[in-house]
């Protein structure tokens, strides 16, 4: 377990000369003493597969191993397939944006293990509150990938019924969904159900008041919710140091529930840790924070230009930890998969790409009058009036006015 005491690291930015000078005498104060002891402890990741694909057992992961003891070679191939299909879909969407078929795309490239590992830990009756980047989780929930594209194409703000797959709509306002997840989980508890709820959010989101209020509410009501933070090191152009000066998983302690940092590029570890956290929720132990330490391999979205703010070498270093290559190496080394498997996956993912491409290109534009639909469940006089006026206005053109 990597639940630790305060580890206040040196601030990145020293402010003003007097202050910097003063810092030298810091060791005089009791806090400095207390902090100093923690300072050396760099947080350890829970990892079950090394970047080279080897299984590891150690003090950090021992507690979590039982949570994947049932995983068969078949399951591993399934996780691999999920990641490959997700990446293929994601790549297709990026391409479609370049071709002008989508207005925007937020790629999950590099975060497949975090999403598939956590997504596959869920039961059908669990409920998911995603951000705008959880395409891999959507895949695990059987949301048709083409449905995800509607909002990025601009035909809707969310194209699926959240209750069909217990997968809420993508939320764009950073952090809002963590409170929805907490409320939903409070409802689950009221119902006496043993389902769990999972809320996804990013390292940047951790700064929002809403996310911290979600921590408070879930702790106070002991709500069955897992906060799954994908720390992909960046919030658009801002590195995680702009959001926190200690590892994010430690935030949970101060709210009275455990936090754990997992290797977000290790699908098996993500599966194990999320299963553990979900079980805690089911057993009435309340919320858990999981920080999946991963990397946004691409741009923030297709509108972004990361060359302005980050170095190529950083990306290169993370390439060596690729979640898909890592599992592939493991599958090959253990003989759990053969070439035929990888080849069939190639074909299958190509077919997915083709299907998505075609679906997008034939996706109809919404009807103009949809502007006035679904604003209120019970109707609203002003909407009725404006709808009628607008229809008359449109008709005035058709009449050749």
């Amino acid at each position, binding site marked *: 377990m990597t639940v630790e005491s305060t580890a206040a690291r040196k601030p990145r930015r020293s402010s003003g000369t007097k202050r910097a000078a003063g810092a030298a005498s810091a060791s005089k104060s009791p806090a400095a003493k207390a902090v100093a002891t923690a300072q050396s402890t760099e947080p350890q990741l829970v990892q079950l597969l090394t970047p080279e694909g080897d299984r590891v057992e150690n003090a950090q992961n021992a507690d979590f191993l039982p949570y994947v003891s049932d995983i068969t070679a078949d399951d591993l191939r399934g996780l691999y397939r999920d990641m490959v299909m997700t990446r293929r879909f994601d790549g297709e969407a990026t391409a479609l944006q370049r071709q002008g078929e989508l207005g925007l795309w937020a790629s999950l490239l590099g975060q497949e293990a975090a999403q598939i590992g956590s997504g596959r830990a869920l039961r059908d009756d669990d409920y998911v509150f995603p951000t705008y980047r959880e395409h891999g989780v959507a895949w695990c929930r059987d949301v048709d990938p083409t449905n995800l594209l509607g909002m990025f194409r601009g035909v*809707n*703000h*969310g*194209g*699926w*019924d*959240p*209750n069909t797959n217990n997968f*809420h*709509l993508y939320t764009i*306002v950073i952090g*809002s969904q*963590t*409170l*929805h*997840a*907490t*409320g*939903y*989980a*409070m*409802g*689950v508890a*009221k*119902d006496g159900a043993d389902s769990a709820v999972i809320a996804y959010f990013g390292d940047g989101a951790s700064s929002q*008041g*809403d996310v911290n*209020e*979600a921590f*408070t*509410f879930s702790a*106070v009501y002991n709500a069955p919710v897992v906060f799954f933070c994908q720390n992909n090191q960046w919030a658009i152009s801002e590195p995680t140091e702009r959001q926190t000066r200690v590892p994010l998983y430690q935030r949970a302690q101060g709210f009275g529930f455990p936090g754990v940092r997992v290797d977000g590029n290790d699908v098996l570890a993500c599966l194990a840790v999320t299963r553990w956290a979900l079980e805690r929720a089911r057993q009435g132990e309340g919320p858990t924070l999981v920080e999946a330490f991963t990397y946004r391999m691409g741009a923030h979205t297709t509108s972004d230009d990361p060359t302005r703010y980050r170095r190529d070498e950083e990306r290169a270093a993370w390439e060596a930890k690729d979640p898909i290559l890592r599992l592939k190496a493991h599958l090959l080394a253990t003989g759990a998969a053969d070439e035929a498997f990888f080849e069939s996956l190639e074909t299958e993912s190509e077919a997915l790409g083709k299907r998505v491409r075609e679906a997008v290109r034939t996706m109809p534009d919404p009807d103009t009058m949809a502007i006035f*639909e*679904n*604003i*209120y*469940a*019970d109707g*609203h*006089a*002003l*909407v009725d009036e404006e709808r009628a006026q607008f229809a008359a206005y449109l008709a005035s053109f058709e009449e050749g006015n």
Partner: protein
Amino acid sequence: MAVEKMSIAKALNESLRKALETDPKVLIMGEDVGKLGGVFRITDGLQKDFGEDRVIDTPLAESGIVGTAVGLALRGYRPVVEIQFDGFVFPAYDQIVTQLAKMHARALGKVKMPVVVRIPYGGAIGAVEHHSESPEALFAHVAGLKVVSPSTASDAYWMLQQAILSDDPVIFFEPKRRYWDKGEVDTDAIPTALHTSRVVREGSDLTLAAYGPMVKVCLEAAAAAAEEGKSVEVVDLRSMSPVDFDGIQASVEKTRRLVVVHEAPVFLGVGSEIAARITERCFYHLEAPVLRVGGYHAPYPPARLEEEYLPGLDRVLDAVDRSLAY
């Protein structure tokens, strides 16, 4: 019960009780709504009778209250949220505007948001800063929300029932200075539709339109005007989103003059929309421009100045005179 005389506060309390009794999915949430019964005692006794699972004291965080209410609504609950005072709704404004108001549309109708946000509003209670504001226009401007305010005990009871039954989010503004005003409530009546205005005094020379705390002031003004031989009609709007423009129009087509009164600042207050739209609808009927009486473009002043700041009898009558002078 059938017909009983009670205060607005009591009517609201009875209405909440009824809702809790009728529908196990109804929840009450807010700061101090439990043992204390809310700072205005609107939830008095409810936690005792319905338990902590249904009448929920929340952490002190309005965004969290509304945000978790959204989640509870997604799970099938019908939360009735209390915001302690008007000035403290703003930390929740983001959740109200970007989530609560838009979720139904975002989901193309596939989810509903039956959440009521109760807000005691308005001044004249001698309070400190942030406890006397009228922010209704800031909600009425936002599509996806409905905004209402009762002015009588009967409306308090019934409009809250209707708001809780509505599948849309309703911002329910309670005229706090009128909490202890009494009126008859018939709990077996067939209530007026939630978003319909009501002529509360008939007249022929001019229409006064108001809602919530100002209805009483307008009725007093109409009575005073009558003594001077002026026949003033008073319309209780009851709903600020949607506004019952048909109802106002009918009155103005008769009286040809309109004055809108609210505590909220005039500039971009609900009266501005009514003036604009009624002028459009009744351009050839109006003998005078629609006049507005309301708060000034100023922060709500310290209590010792609120009597001057708030629209009172004299300021309403002044506007009546100005309108009739056209």
